[in-house]
Structure formats: structure tokens, C-alpha cells
């Protein structure tokens, strides 16, 4: 059975998030009232209840907060093995994405930077270990 690789179907709230990524820009909502970055996309700031926000550019840098190495293939579009990382961005929110390259030696806390993958219908952020940087302090607690 043919099963196409999933891609995002933007809605009225999320369209700018995905449009920026088509230009290889990682942008998140930043509240104009209290300055908090937020994700997933939502019209109202859950902190100060302001509707006003900007699509602020992110540094594209963060640290691995958690990860999984997928061994059992469940979707024909994703050949195993591959590694999914949960990246805690410098701006605060955590994003899911694939790790570029091998998972050998992957540890929670490792610093990563964003790169771009031309997936069908949508450019997606992928993450690469910044091996030249010292390990970040634990992001837990």
C-alpha cells in the first residue's frame, strides 16, 4: 500500500511557522506583551493572555533534551534506523526533529545546531551535533 511521507498541512495559525521554514528560517511566536517564546503555535499567550506577538527568528541552537533511536519500521517513508531528537532551543521551547548522521555517542545535553532537509512539500529542520562545543550543563531539574 502506498503511504506518502507525512507533511504539515498549515492552518491559519501555523502558516507563518511553516512558511518561514520554507526559507530555512526557524521562527517562533514571541509574545509582544511579556516577551515569552511559545510553542506549539497558539493565538493567545498562555502567560499574559495577550493576542499580540511577532514571528521572532531563533538562533537555531540548542541542546538534546531527549531522543529515541527508531529500529522498528512502521511507516514506509521512514527507513530505519533513524534518530529523533527533542531539542531544547536556546529560546526555551523544545522541538522534535531528526538527527543528521549517526546516533553513536549521542547523549542528553549535547549541543546541536539546525540544518535543513528538503522533505517533500516542506523544508524541515534537522539537527547536527556541534562537536566543537563543550558539553552543555544538564538541562534537567
Amino acid at each position: 500500500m502506498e503511504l506518502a511521507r507525512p507533511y504539515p498541512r498549515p492552518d491559519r495559525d501555523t502558516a507563518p511557522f511553516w512558511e518561514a521554514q520554507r526559507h530555512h528560517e526557524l521562527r517562533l511566536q514571541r509574545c509582544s506583551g511579556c516577551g515569552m517564546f511559545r510553542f506549539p503555535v497558539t493565538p493567545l499567550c498562555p502567560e499574559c493572555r495577550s493576542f499580540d506577538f511577532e514571528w521572532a527568528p531563533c538562533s537555531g541552537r540548542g541542546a538534546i533534551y531527549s531522543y529515541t533511536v527508531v529500529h522498528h519500521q512502521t511507516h514506509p517513508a521512514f527507513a530505519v534506523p533513524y534518530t529523533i531528537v527533542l531539542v531544547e532551543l536556546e529560546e526555551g521551547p523544545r522541538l522534535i526533529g531528526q538527527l543528521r548522521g549517526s546516533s553513536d555517542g549521542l547523549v542528553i545535553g549535547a549541543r546541536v545546531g539546525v540544518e535543513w532537509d528538503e522533505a517533500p512539500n516542506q523544508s524541515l529542520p534537522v539537527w547536527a551535533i556541534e562537536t566543537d562545543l563543550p558539553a552543555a550543563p544538564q538541562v534537567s531539574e
Partner: protein
Amino acid sequence: MTTIRNKTAIAGIGQTEFSKDSRRSTLRMALEAILEALADAGLEPRDIDGIVRMSANDDVFEIDLVRALGLPNLRFFAEIPHGGGAACGTVACAAAAVAAGVADVVVTFRSLNERSERRFGESSLGGGLGGWMQYYLPHGLVTPAQWVAIFAQRYLHEYGYTTEEFGRVSVLCRKHAATNTHAMMYERPITMEDHQNSRWISEPLRMLDCTLDTDGACAAVVVSAEKAKTLKSAPVYIAAAAQGTGSRTEMMTSYQRKSLTRLEEAEATARELYRIAEMTPDDIRMVHVYDHFSPLVLTALEAYGFAPPGKAPGLLREGRLELDGSMPMNTHGGHLGEGYLHGFGHIVEAVRQLRGAASNQVPDVMNCLVTSGTGVPTSGLILSKDSY
């Protein structure tokens, strides 16, 4: 303020066989389970005036049941979202309706051909995806096991455990299933070695950390405590019933929370249950914990107050959750051993234990805590033999 404590009861339960291939429709199985539950209570189909269903991934609708059972009318019908988080929630909703006088006899059920038809462990979604899925599925994070693996990795990291702690959950459930004639894994226990040798699904989850896929159906009938006393089977009182979401909640991907090793939705549900039942975790004699994936059984035990954060593995190491332990868990084998009816089998088992009629009967069980899905908006019940 008044609560719903012991105002309602489960008066009847029904359950089909659990198998890899039911060879019949989910509607037919739902009807079989519901008729059995009605007979168990000594009620007739015409007595039903309310139905609560689980909305996610279920193709049996209340109007199908109205037609098939020949009901003249339903005056109360509702559905609870978010997959396995809804199981106890259907009973909570039914109890609220009965306590409020909106309905007298409310049926709740779950019916699935999850093994022979659509398997949940396999992704079936492609193309353009909206809603919450747009953030995860395009990257290849496509199944529940993968969503849960992100939480499980964090648990190992923060507390310094190995996957053997997950294995203890699977071994315990399979041990209980091995002596439950109704279980898919009857007479098929596993060892820790089996667990550690089972293949990776999505690290740190192995195959033996993951639920079975099951065909089958369960049902329960909820009535007022007064009515239950007049019916055929001994009432099992609903001492407490509650739902919870926690903060910043998503459908299995609540990755923005401060901690990924705490189950906020379960902690919130626990607070409500203990408040309504006027109990503490120390009062609970038996637990039936939702076990679609073994790691979240540990965090659920912590969320419901049976161990401090990070300490649930001690409960298993000390044997406290065994049949002869201080608080037996998943005496039927749970999803990992009996079968996966999205938490409904746990409710049925709790009723059986409180009636003294379970396969692995534990003596003198006075109450059971039943929990529903983890990592999703959830629900729970405290069921009691007495209406204290």
C-alpha cells in the same frame, strides 16, 4: 461541598474473549459485551437510557447500539476523547449523569479489532496532516511507542536506571497473565532475560515493553447506589471518579512541560480521586495501572502517590505489586499480558476482584484504584466493595 462519593455503582460487567482475530465486527462484539453486562446486572436492554463511548479510534456509535438493541430512546449520550485516557472517564461521565439524575442506567464500553484490522503500532497516516500531528509526524515520530520513548529516555537519564526497571513491569504483568485463563498470554510468562533479549522497537523501548494488540470488547453498567442494591450482582461502588489534563497538555507529546518524568494529568486526577474518596494512597489495596508501555507504569505509580518521583522501581524490586504483595498490580496481566482494550479490561478486573470472582483472586480486596491512559488527558476510578 457534596461529591459523587459512593452515590453510584457498577452493577454489571461484560467481556468477550480476547484474541488476535475475533472473526466478527466491533459492533457485534460491543453488543455481546453489553448484553452480558446487562444480564450480569439483571437488567434488560430496554432499561438503558444512557450510553457513554470512547471517541478515539472507535467505530461503534451510540446510534448503532440504539438500532441494534431496539432502544426506544436515549436521554443521555456522550463521548470521552483521547484514546486510552478515556476508559475510566466513560464511567466518571456515567456516574456524574446518574448522580445528577440525568439518566438511570448508563452503559459504557470499548470494542476493538485492533489486531486483525487496524493496528495501532503501525502508522497509517500519510500526506498533509494538520492539528498536533503537523509538528511530529513529518519528522518520522509516527507511533505511540516512539512518542513514549522520548519520555522513557528522560526517565532513565534523570534517575540513572537501566531498562531492567521497565522489564520488571513487563515480567510482572506476564506473570499475572500466565495464570489468567482469559489472557492472550495465558501460560506464557517471560523472564528478565527474555525482556532484555527482545528487539528494540524505539530505544529505550523493546518489543516486550509494548502492549499487545487485541481484538475484543468490554462493557460496564452504571446505576445509582440505591438501585444497584436491588439488582442481581453485588454492587461495586464508585468511591471516586475523575479526569485530569495537567498543564500544557498535548495528545501523547506534552514535551513542553517543565518535567517529562512527571505525569501532570495523572497527578491532577489522583488529587481529585483521593479528595472525593476521602482516602490517601496508603488506603489503596490494589491497583490496575494503564500499561500500554512499561516505562509509564512507573511514572503513573509515582503520580498516584505510591512512591516519590523516581522511586517506583523500588515497589517492583520489593515485590509489593505481586499477588501476595501489599498492593497487587494488574492482577489480570494488564495490556502487556491479558490484552489491550484501552484500559477497559482494568475496570472489569477491578470489579471482579471486588466481587471475589477474578482468575487470580486476592483475598479480601476492599478497594481498587484504576488508572487510564498515560501521556494523554486521563481519568481514574477508586472502586470500593463497601459504600462507606
